[in-house]
């Protein structure tokens, strides 16, 4: 043991002697590691800060300790009495509405919110101008709106609007709505009013898509009381059909969005780190090559192989620790500057915090990468034969890597894989990423090997410049592997992102609008059905219309097993979560194919039967004859599944995962949902006519919705592209390192060529031809990798239809190739500038 301890001490001492000469040779090593780790640390820290912030502000965001939501209906007397007994109770109602100017001008889709006298239970509603009191008298016929509402309608405070059957006055602008975030994604600006005012509009009708939220401030503030309340509500009112949310997770949709965006950005950072790992490996290879003399001297003097390995692994760990420490410091500070912007965007006060978890994950990735990518060159260096000192020329023969180094390398890569699964919300996302990167590595290494072979074959077919260039590709010590890997990985990432973004853009702006209707209309009362249909058909440019009943319900049980006890795959978890739209129909829906089982007769009037989305049924392991119980309007409704359908949600047409047979839902209070397809000329007439004739019906222009989604995707895409620049920069660093490592050989070659009479331009053309060939092949292969990766992502993970975009691929491949050539040209020009025949004199 003392001998082992002595060896470790000696190794540390000798490692320090090696390092004290300075870190000049480690710039690329440090930078490559720093870039990847700082990205992962910053993204992880920011996500954790935002999620923590949501959690700490949970009560304010939610508007209480708990939010109990009902759709279509209010609480019964018994339910309300129970809730009031738990603490202070406040009711808020929300729905989407169409608001219009009193002069019959523009109409606007808005998010209506009706409050009571106790609102807000937590935080402050800030209005401009401020209201002196919230007495009921002050709130009659009054609305408070967001600034965007006024801007879009071209109105000012004090002017009037039409909402349903009522004419209301804009009293103030909402400066801050404390519970805004709890509502999740908003389709339109906020318009706030009292409960009485909402009822005066005539929009509050049975079956309307209205959400009634009951917010409570509990008497007992302990966390356990929240769990007890949830359990008691489920026990006392098992069929109420309400959604329970508490302050510990006030805005799950926002939290999930933050986590998912954070995950994607982390994976981009991880790609940068992986590319950086190649640079790390190259830097260590170059360093150990310079140290081969020292290594062989140590071995001649009697140093064991293990000691040699320890000396350099300690150096690598020390340098990695330095880079990672700096990266973690920067990575934990950066979010402090960004969180303010995000808090402003989300309209909640949020303080920058410190979370050690993401930093530990980033450090884990960093160390595993640094050690994993250096084991191969270190293992080879440790195997260096000390006999080479007698030959006075250090050979670069490839020796095998000892088993211990391979084992450590494998462990490090397993750590990286394990951390990927740890940070990923869904295992399949982690698996896709790991498979993609691993596949890219394998293919690119094979490409480099094939490239060397191809170059060897092509030599006789080229002239002087071409022959020299091709020989450089397969000469000993060629950097072709590093060049292909660094260029390839970044091009693969760029082309993957470009193809995914291109596919989304294509679907959003071209494919989807071609198939999608012009308008969706919701909250059509049954007695308005004929009038509305007549109106739509009367519009010049009318193409088509579809109208179906619509209700909402949540899954209570499958085959009698409660929903909470059922484990589902993450890609269909949305179906079991919260409430779903559902419908009833006597005939099979137009937009889906029955794949298994018979449809019920058109005059069927028996016990409820159900038609289900085949994919969801497969995910739940359902068979024909199984049952599903849903809570609809506060009552459990159990139906036997008699057939499955293939549903195309991307068609833009009306589709429901669950379709019931008509009885008994046809007798329940509900509204109708319609899609209307019109020519462009007919859209404006339809929009203005529908709002004025049917003020209770909300119409959503599909192009506007696509535009909103497109803007969000753009912002998301910009964040992804910004971080992908880190990967591209890392790959340029790696490329620069590969060029630098071969610098000495090239300068020597250039000196000999100059001595023989070659001009500088000719020498440059040899080097550029070499990199043109290598870079082009690497870019093409990785463009194909990116194309395949985008296919796997879109068709596999996102279950959408992939389209090959040759222009996008060509642009990303050529762009990367151009970047490679520019870097190589600049590097060579600078190197050749200093070449003199003095180099030959030293020989």
């Amino acid at each position, binding site marked *: 043991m003392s001998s082992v301890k*002595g060896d470790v001490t000696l190794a540390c001492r000798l490692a320090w002697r090696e390092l004290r000469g300075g870190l000049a040779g480690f710039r690329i090593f440090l930078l490559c590691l720093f870039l990847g780790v700082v990205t992962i640390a910053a993204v992880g820290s920011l996500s954790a800060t935002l999620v923590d912030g949501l959690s700490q502000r949970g009560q304010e965001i939610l508007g209480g300790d708990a939010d109990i939501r009902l759709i279509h209906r209010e609480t019964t007397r018994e339910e309300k009495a129970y809730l009031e007994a738990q603490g202070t109770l406040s009711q808020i109602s929300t729905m989407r509405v169409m608001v219009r100017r009193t002069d019959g001008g523009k109409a606007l889709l808005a998010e209506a919110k009706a409050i009571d006298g106790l609102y807000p239970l937590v935080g402050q509603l800030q209005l401009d101008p401020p209201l002196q009191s919230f007495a009921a008298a002050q709130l009659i016929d009054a609305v408070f709106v967001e600034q965007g509402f006024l801007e879009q309608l071209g109105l000012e405070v004090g002017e009037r609007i039409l909402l349903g059957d009522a004419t209301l006055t804009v009293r103030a602008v909402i400066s801050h709505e404390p519970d805004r975030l709890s509502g999740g994604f908003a389709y339109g600006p906020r318009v706030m009013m009292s409960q009485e005012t909402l009822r005066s509009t005539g929009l509050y009708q049975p079956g309307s898509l209205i959400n009634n939220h009951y917010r409570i401030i509990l008497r007992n503030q302990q966390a356990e009381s929240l769990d007890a309340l949830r359990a008691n509500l489920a026990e006392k009112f098992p069929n109420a059909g309400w959604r329970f949310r508490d302050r510990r997770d006030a805005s799950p949709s926002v939290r999930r969005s933050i986590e998912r965006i954070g995950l994607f950005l982390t994976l981009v950072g991880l790609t940068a780190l992986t590319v950086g790992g190649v640079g790390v490996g190259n830097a260590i290879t170059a360093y150990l090559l310079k140290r081969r003399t020292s290594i062989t001297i140590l071995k*001649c*003097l009697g140093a064991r*192989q293990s000691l040699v390995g320890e000396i350099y692994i300690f150096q690598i760990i020390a340098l990695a620790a330095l880079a990672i420490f700096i990266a973690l410091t920067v990575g934990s500070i950066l979010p402090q500057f960004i969180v303010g912007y995000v808090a402003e965007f989300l309209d909640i006060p949020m303080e920058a915090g410190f979370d050690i978890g993401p930093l530990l994950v980033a450090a884990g990735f960093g160390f595993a990468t640094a050690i994993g990518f250096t084991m191969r060159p270190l293992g080879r260096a440790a195997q260096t034969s000390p006999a080479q000192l007698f030959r006075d020329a250090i050979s670069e023969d490839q020796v095998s890597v000892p088993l211990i180094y391979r084992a450590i390398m494998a462990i490090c890569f397993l750590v990286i894989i394990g951390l990927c699964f740890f940070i990923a919300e869904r295992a399949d996302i982690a698996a896709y990423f790991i498979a993609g990167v691993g596949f890219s590595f394998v293919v690119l290494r094979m490409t480099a090997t094939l490239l060397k072979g191809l170059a060897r074959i092509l030599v006789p077919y080229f002239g002087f410049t071409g022959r020299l260039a091709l020989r450089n590709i397969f000469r000993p010590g060629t950097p072709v592997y590093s060049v292909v890997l660094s260029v390839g990985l970044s091009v693969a990432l760029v082309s993957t992102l470009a193809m995914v973004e291109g596919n989304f853009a294509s679907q959003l702006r071209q494919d989807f609008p071609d198939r999608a209707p012009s308008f969706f209309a919701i909250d059509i009362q049954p007695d308005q059905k004929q009038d509305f249909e007549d109106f739509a058909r009367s519009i010049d440019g009318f193409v088509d219309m579809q109208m179906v009943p619509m209700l909402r319900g949540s899954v209570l049980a499958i085959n009698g097993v409660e929903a909470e006890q059922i484990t589902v795959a993450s890609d269909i978890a949305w179906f079991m979560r919260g409430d779903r739209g559902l419908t009833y129909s006597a005939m099979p829906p137009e937009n889906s194919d029955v794949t298994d089982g018979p449809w019920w007769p058109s005059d069927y009037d028996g016990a409820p039967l159900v038609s289900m989305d085949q994919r969801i049924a497969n995910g739940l392991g359902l068979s024909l004859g199984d049952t599903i119980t849903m809570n609809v309007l506060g009552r459990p409704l159990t139906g036997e599944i008699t057939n499955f359908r293939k549903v195309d949600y991307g068609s833009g047409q009306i589709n429901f995962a669950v379709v019931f047979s008509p009885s008994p839902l046809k007798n329940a209070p509900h509204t109708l949902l319609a899609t209307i397809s019109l020519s462009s000329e007919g859209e404006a007439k339809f929009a203005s006519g529908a709002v004025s004739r049917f003020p209770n019906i909300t119409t959503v222009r599909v192009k506007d919705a696509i535009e909103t989604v497109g803007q969000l995707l753009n912002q998301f895409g910009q964040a992804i592209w910004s971080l992908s620049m880190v990967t591209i920069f890392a790959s340029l660093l790696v490329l620069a390192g590969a060029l630098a490592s071969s610098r000495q050989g090239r300068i020597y070659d250039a000196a000999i060529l100059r001595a023989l009479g070659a001009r500088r331009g000719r020498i440059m053309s040899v080097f550029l031809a070499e990199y043109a060939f290598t870079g082009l092949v690497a870019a093409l292969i990785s463009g194909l990798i990116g194309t395949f990766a985008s296919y796997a992502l879109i068709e596999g993970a996102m279950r959408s239809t992939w389209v090959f975009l040759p222009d996008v691929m060509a642009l990303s491949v050529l762009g990367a190739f151009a970047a490679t050539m520019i870097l190589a040209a600049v590097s060579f020009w600078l190197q050749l500038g200093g070449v003199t025949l003095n180099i030959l004199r030293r020989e």
Partner: protein
Amino acid sequence: MPRKSVTPVSPTALVADLNNVHVRLSSRAGQVHILRGVNLQIGAGEQIGLVGPSGSGKSTLMMIMAGLERATSGGVIMAGHDFSKLSEDGLADFRRDQLGIVFQSFHLVPTMTALENVALPLELAHDPDAFEKATQILGEVGLLERLDHYPVQLSGGEQQRVALARALVASPPILLADEPTGNLDQNTGHQIMDLIFGLTKARGTTVFLITHDVELAQRCQRVMHMRDGILDE
């Protein structure tokens, strides 16, 4: 606590006992027979000079004696250690404890000072007095003012003196010197050889010297000749 040395298999007065040693190396051009049945016995304290033309196998013989390469066939027993029974770590331990080597190109560790270079063999043996002993022997070779200088700051002769000090600091029974004056001018070379013979004689160190210089070889007690892998006395 200094590390214990490798226990010799058979204690003997011979420091080198090579019997019918053949070395064949494979290369792209085919197999090369470098040493052809070399027999060599060296007693303790002897000074052996080996001369021969380039490519005759002199350096290969030295590498076999140093345990840096393994013989294809034949017996190699150095200072009582049968190399065929030693692992790579065993050979490393042998070099640490029993051998000092001086190279033509000095081969000092560039990132270590003169003192650190000389102390290195003792540090590898975990000798607690490594730096004191290194200082002492650097004084013997006349470099007390150069303790903290790096190799790049020393002349060729000074570097070779540091290399010599490093080779002898652990008082090894055997010194191998491969063209120790090859990169030095004549005067400096003579000074180095005077030091080699002086220091080794005082310590009773067995010297095995490879040289092109016949005059230098004749300063040794025995002169051997090598040609085409065959050793003659």
